[in-house]
């Protein structure tokens, strides 16, 4: 489904160059659940950004269902982010001035769906994550766990084939981390999506199928 070939990413800061990824290559199959682990600065987030089409590599190629992702135009790449990828961030990144329902319907509205259809689907997804009754609540009135569930609902409402989660439980206590992770795995089964989770929580990695270890921008194992 996804194939990364010799991906390199170099950040330039004035005169200094920093090589975040040093020729990374691996493959992921549809529906696969993998964990990306490694110390800080190993290139985990950079990898996720590249896989999600948020950034472009300095060298290398990435194929998604046979299509070279980085040969796509800005418009095509934005369509890929909207229809194919679901992002879950450590800090839920919900829009505080909008309700949970508005936040969840946002990707559908961006994708061009009607407001009615978007709201219907968003309400369904909020019910699926157990927040149907709080659909009209503003994010700041929700707990940390609830906010992250809204973020998960937002990432999955468009039924993406690839979900990229960057420390999705990093900001939650153990009990909430378990709940959120359970939900993520359940939905993974339901939607048959590929799940890539960056985490420091080693106990969570044991529940995933494969672990990719990164060290200094390279695959450690």
């Amino acid at each position, binding site marked *: 489904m996804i194939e990364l070939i010799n991906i390199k990413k170099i950040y330039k800061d004035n005169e200094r160059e920093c090589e975040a990824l040093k020729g990374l290559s691996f493959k992921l199959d549809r529906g696969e659940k993998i964990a990306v682990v490694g110390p800080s600065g190993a290139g985990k987030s950079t990898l996720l950004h590249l896989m999600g089409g*948020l950034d472009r590599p300095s060298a290398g190629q990435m194929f998604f269902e046979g299509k070279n992702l980085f040969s796509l135009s800005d418009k095509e*790449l*934005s369509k890929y*982010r909207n229809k194919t990828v679901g992002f879950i961030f450590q800090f839920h990144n919900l*829009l505080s001035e909008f309700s949970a329902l508005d936040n969840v319907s*946002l990707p559908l509205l*961006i*994708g061009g769906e009607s407001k009615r259809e978007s709201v219907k689907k968003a309400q369904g997804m909020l019910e699926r994550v157990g927040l149907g009754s709080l659909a009209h609540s503003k994010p700041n009135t929700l707990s940390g766990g609830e906010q992250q569930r809204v973020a998960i609902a937002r990432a999955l409402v468009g039924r993406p084939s690839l979900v990229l989660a960057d420390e999705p439980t990093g900001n939650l206590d153990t009990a909430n981390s378990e709940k959120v992770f359970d939900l993520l795995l359940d939905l993974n089964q339901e939607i048959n999506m590929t799940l890539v989770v960056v985490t420091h929580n080693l106990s969570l990695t044991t529940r995933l199928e494969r672990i990719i270890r990164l060290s200094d921008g390279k695959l450690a194992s």
Partner: protein
Amino acid sequence: MNFLMNLEKILGIRKKGVRSIAFAVAFFAVILSMGLAFICLFVISGFQKEYQKSILAFNAHIVLFSEQGRGEEKKVREAIEHINLQTQNAMITDVSPFAVSEAVILDSSGLKACILKAIDPQKLKNVYALELNILDGREDLSHSLLLGSELAYQISKNEIKMIIPQGASLTDLKRSIQTIPLAGIFKSGIYEFDSRFALTSFEMLKKLTGVFKITGYEIALQDPLGAPRVAKLLEENLPGMRAISWDELNSSLFKAMQMEKSVFFIVVTLIFFVAAFNLLGATAMSVYLCRYEISLLYSLGVSKLKLQRSFGLTGFLFGITSCLMGWLIAFLMLKLEDYYGWIKLDPKIYFISTLPMDFGPKLFGVGLIFGSLICFLFALGVAKNLIQEKYIINYIK
């Protein structure tokens, strides 16, 4: 466009912007700059219009100088008829002979040089557009004079003593002093004309000088802007006679005005750019304030181009609002100046005594389009530079 407006709402650009004092200061600066630019535009245009109006009030559109001094009227009229048949837009509407002579006015304060211009009083309203103030019962110019308003102000009597010094010795001069009644005053608005000219009839000029010689013919056109073309045609049709259009006759003034206009244009452009740089700062601030929303929307599938355009659109709306408010400020300030007349101009330098202004819709339209376009381009430029992957990925965690 609808989606861009929604995007703006999501980004909360305006809401966030208004919350920021710095943004409000930038907005205020743009409004003031626009206001200043509009004041400059209105005043420059006012000067141009006022000068043009005043010059055309006293001067005919074309002055055709006589070759022989008399006996040419038939030839001139035939040439005019021929040109009228040839031309469509710049039709000659009237022609009037004139004669000039130097004169000296004797007054209790001393001698004053003036130019005595003889015209056909019947054509006073057709060829000239002067502001006249004629004394009761003295409408006939055959035995009286019309003084320029500034000259009359210096004299302030109902009659004057005048001599024409052409070829006369000092003893002759004393003997030839004549008392002439004043018919009234005229005002063109140009100090140069109003302080130096006296108008009279041909009979009066003949009486004063003892000779009668036509200096030339003053010609009125339907379209004053067609004067150079018609002047050329007149010269072609009347060999030996020299035709000068009103703009050529006042070329030194127009050249000075053109230079003034060029300087003002540079100043106005700089003001517009100061305004645009204020906007540049405000947009950069907006992008910074909305950095999380931008990153989030980008990750959810909004293209970079749409995000950039959204800020461009904000800049455009910002530009239109600032232009409208700037125009309003300029309009109110100049209306107050017009009412109270705080600024007094020295007519010896500027030819007019009050600040001229022109609020034509064309100027407003040009200002609005120019201002909005600059704001749009500057905002888009900033957004294009700041909304890039390398910045976006830093804001989303």
